[in-house]
């Protein structure tokens, strides 16, 4: 899943980015409102984490501009403004969630995951597929014998394919949603992740879970 964080505190940028990356998310960063606005318009992010008091262009203006342009991106406002009026204003201007600084990182993670689920219209975080049970809220996958340990990237890839179950997902789309940056990823990196994922799942006899469509990409039927 790919996220965009618009936040002017570099130290907060670093810690949030690290934290999300360790959970398998790809997170792009913008340090001011104008740069953030440009990124949000140019790329398809699953969730935008938005500070309000930003240099260049304030957070509410970014949000308003995005909504005026018809963007349906899920927005979580992360702000030190703690008044009820601020929260109401933010939500009324089109934010999907509001979290006040200082915040619990796990809570931020849970709220972002909830917004991702909402984007793919899966309220239930548990997905049953064959003998496997995938919990997207906890980031875990279970077989009848117990938990299968996946790396964050493997889990995110699986989660993304499950969210588009029945549809072929191209390698480019997977790169865009799994990695930060814009084109610095090696071309076979997705194949490597899929290969590792298949190995771990095939050990539990789910040999045909992820199928390859040559020339197109991957699909979970």
């Amino acid at each position, binding site marked *: 899943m790919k996220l965009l964080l618009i936040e002017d*505190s570099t130290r907060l940028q670093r810690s949030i980015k690290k934290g999300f990356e360790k959970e398998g998310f790809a997170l792009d960063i913008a340090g001011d409102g104008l740069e953030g606005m440009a990124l949000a318009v140019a790329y398809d992010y699953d969730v935008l984490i938005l500070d309000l008091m930003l240099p260049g262009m304030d957070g509410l203006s970014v949000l308003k501009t995005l909504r005026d342009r018809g963007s349906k991106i899920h927005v979580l406002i992360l702000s030190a403004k703690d008044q009820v009026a601020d929260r109401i204003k933010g939500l009324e201007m089109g934010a999907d969630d509001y979290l006040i*600084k200082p915040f619990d990182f796990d809570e931020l993670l849970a709220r972002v995951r909830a917004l991702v689920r909402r984007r793919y219209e899966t309220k239930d975080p548990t997905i049953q597929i064959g003998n496997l049970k995938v919990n997207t809220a906890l980031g875990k996958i279970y077989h009848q014998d117990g938990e299968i340990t996946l790396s964050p990237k493997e889990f995110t890839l699986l989660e993304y394919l499950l969210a588009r179950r029945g549809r072929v997902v191209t390698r480019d789309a997977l790169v865009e949603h799994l990695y930060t940056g814009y084109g610095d990823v090696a071309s076979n990196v997705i194949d490597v992740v899929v290969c590792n994922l298949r190995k771990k799942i095939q050990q539990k006899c789910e040999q045909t879970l992820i199928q390859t469509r040559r020339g197109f990409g991957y699909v979970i039927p």
Partner: protein
Amino acid sequence: MSKNSPMPSIHRTLTHTLLLGAGFFIVGVSLLLDLTITGFLTDGFDDDIFFRAQSLVTLTKVFEEGIELDFAGEFMPEFETAEGPEYFEIWLPDGSLLERSESLGKNALPTSNSPVEAAEWENVELPGAGLCRLLRITFHPQQEDADVEGELEASGDATLGVTLLLARKRNSFDQLLKAIHFLIWGSLGVLLLVVIGFVRLTLRRGLRPLDDIQRQVQNIDPGALDSRIFLQKPVVELTPVVDQLNAMLVRLEDGVIRERRFTSDVAHELRTPLSELRSLSEVGLKDPDDHEMVVSFFQDTREISLEMEHLVSTLLELSRCDGGSRIATADDVDLTSILQKVLKRVATHALERQVKVDCHLDQPFVVKSDWTMVETILQNLLNNAVSHGPQGCTVVVEKLKDAPGLKIRNPAPNLVESDLTHLFERFWQKDAARTGGKNAGLGLSLVKAFALLLNLELSVQLEDQQLTFCLVFPGT
């Protein structure tokens, strides 16, 4: 004042004082009037009796046959009938009765008939006639002048002392006195009622502006500090009070707003580093084995700690300035040396932002001031110029030509004239976005606070988008 005693009231005090004063005055005047009139009438009544007695005395003469009363009842009918109202008895020196008025009938005047040296007055109860005023005098009746016929002369015989008892009914006189008493004291009662009404009405009207103020002050909501007091009809005595009170309310409102904003700003300034600390620690704890990440987080944590320490130190300095506990010393301070020291400190930051600092001071420039505070002032002014001037700009530091002082100038393309009034406000920043970290918006506040303590003239102006701070030291 004891706990239970009611609070003194201007209204009550004035009412009581005026009513008591007016009451005592009116009662006193009435009493005086009553006594004067009663005395005057009584004297008149007595004088009348006395004159009547003189008539009887005149009519009592010594003849050859002895003492006789030359009395003709038709000229004095009041002695003739039983109704009186006058009665007399004339007693001879030997104690025998010379004459008694017809009006007494068979009664006698109930008093002694012995001679007296001076006229004596008394009130006696006469059967059938009631209370009477009685005069007793002893006199020497006149006799025919031996030399001139028809002329009378005083009797030379001291033994011929005749005593006259003359009484007059006083019931009608007493009724007159009663009527006068009633009139006086009745008028007093009415007058008192009128005075009470007048005093209360006058006080109510006179003290209406005061009551008005009291009502408005009582209705002030402690939470709504924008309340003001208005006098419907301005009065000389209260207008200055109301003006002062309103001025105090304005200052109070400003103070509370400033305090609220200050508290909110402090909270906000602390939220950002706290968020950073919490996020760093929580993410760090998720994977403590990631050595590289943990080390970088520790570096961030140290930076945050230093910034918070700086913020707290500045706040404490401001608090000490506000509380008057920051004492300034008066030493020889070389501004050139301080500037060189400060320039070294800002050099790294200036290099990062490609800002050139052009300092025109190379000779010692000594003033009398507090070294530490002047250093802080110059440090903050230069930090401000280097941090907020546009990237690649030039900051100029030079001596003032016409006064002992310095000016520091830097381009400020984003500032407008109205921003100048906020520059020294605590936590004010041109960009509402809190960048956190080093710039909390307290540096210039501290500059102003120190300048005040050191009696420096600190001014700021914006001309052609050049921001210039001038610092003039007191004459040395």
